[in-house]
Every structure is written in C-alpha cells, then in structure tokens.
C-alpha cells in the first residue's frame, strides 16, 4: 500500500466515523413501531425497579422528563391528575427522570409528589434507546406493545390531545 492509498483509507474511515456519529438519530421510536423493552431502578431507593415488559397488557404512558426542563414540570402534575382518573381502567404512567444527579429530580418530587412510577435514567441509556428528540417526549404504548402516540414538547392545551389518545386506547382494550 502506498502512502497515498493509506491516507485515502484513513480519510474514508474518519469520514465514516463522523457520519455514523451524526446518523444515530435516524432510528427514533415512531408511531406504529414496537416500543423497546427497558428495565430501570426507581428514583426512590426503597421502591422496586420498573420494567416495561412487566406492564404488558396495560396502556402505558412513558414520559421522559428532567427537573431543568420547564415544560416537563408543567406537564407532570397534569399527568398525576390523569393517572388518578384512568388508573382503574388500566392506565399506567412511567415518567423516566433523566436528571443527573438524580437528587435534582428528587428535589422537585419533594415539592410535587407524584403517584405513578418514576424510574431514574441518569446516564440517558433508555433515552438513547428511544432516541428521544426533545424534552419532554412521551410515548403512548398500547397493551400489545405498539407505540400509538409520540408527543414532543408540552404546552397547556396538549393534555387534551394526550387524554383523547389515552381514552381511545383504553376504550379499544
């Protein structure tokens, strides 16, 4: 191999590595796809770990949030109300905290107690798995594991859109 060929090979490899770095985000979880299974410890040291496969057969609303994300903090108390309204009909809410350190998330929960499942993902492994492309992002997962709604961001009127989708899912199963 001549020096020139070597240089060309190296350049091609470098370009490929850079391209791969930016191309990962093309594999985000979308509506109609199966939700990837995950298992995470609870943000509370004294509560059991949360896994998606253990919730199969229920309508699951998965939300990625952090204490530094203002729209997330707006949405969580509304999700708590929704949880109490629909939990008897089979709704489960899993609000994954991506706070690092997790104490930041716990500080928020001290002031705003929430009754649904709150696992902690400080390293963002599951956010990476779902390829979350905004904060907050939430996924409505049907009892059979398919994603029927992906919702990015949160504004005041959004809870109605989400509630409608949840009602539809609960009515169908």
């Amino acid at each position, binding site marked *: 191999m001549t*020096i*020139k060929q070597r*240089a*060309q090979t*190296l*350049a091609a490899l*470098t*370009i490929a*590595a*850079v391209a791969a*770095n*930016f191309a990962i*985000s093309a594999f985000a979880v979308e509506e109609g796809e199966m939700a990837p299974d995950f298992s995470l410890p609870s943000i509370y040291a004294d509560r059991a770990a949360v896994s998606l496969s253990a919730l199969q057969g229920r309508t699951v609303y998965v939300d*990625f949030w*952090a204490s*530094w*994300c203002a729209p997330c903090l707006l949405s969580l108390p509304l999700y708590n109300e929704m949880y109490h309204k629909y939990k008897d009909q089979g709704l489960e809410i899993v609000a994954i905290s*991506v*706070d*690092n350190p997790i104490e*930041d998330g716990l500080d928020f929960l001290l002031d705003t107690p929430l009754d649904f499942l709150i696992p902690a*993902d400080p390293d*963002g492994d599951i*956010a*990476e798995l779902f390829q*979350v*492309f*905004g*904060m907050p*992002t939430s996924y409505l997962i049907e009892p059979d594991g398919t994603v029927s709604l992906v919702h990015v961001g949160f504004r005041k009127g959004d809870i109605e859109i989400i509630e409608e989708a949840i009602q539809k899912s609960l009515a169908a199963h």
Partner: protein
Amino acid sequence: MRMLRIPCLLLLATSLLTACTEVRPWQRGNFARVEMQWQSDPLESALNDHIFFSKEASSGGNSAAGGGCGCN
C-alpha cells in the same frame, strides 16, 4: 511530498471533526444551570443597568429593543 500535503490536511481536518458531538436533548441539563446563563444574577444586572442609565443618561441597547435615545 507536495502531492500528499492536501490529503494530509484534509485528514487532519476530518479527524478533528470527531471531537464534534451532538448534545442530546436529555444532556442539556448543564445548559440550564445558573453558571451557564449570560446574566447569572438578575438583581446585579438590573443594578448595573441602573448605574449605566444614570451615568450615561441613556438606557437600553444592551439586550433587545431600545437604542439609547433617552426618550423613555
């Protein structure tokens, strides 16, 4: 040697690109910290604005609207 100069430079430039990485949405917590803000202390910055206004007889121009016309 001269012929190799451009490929070598290109190689160097692209290898530096590997240091560029995307900050993912869930990693943006650090940007939200107080020490990352342009104005870490709103009270102090308001006071500085006030001093500037009284010394220069003009205000504004340091953020968005207002060109220091002294007409407000």
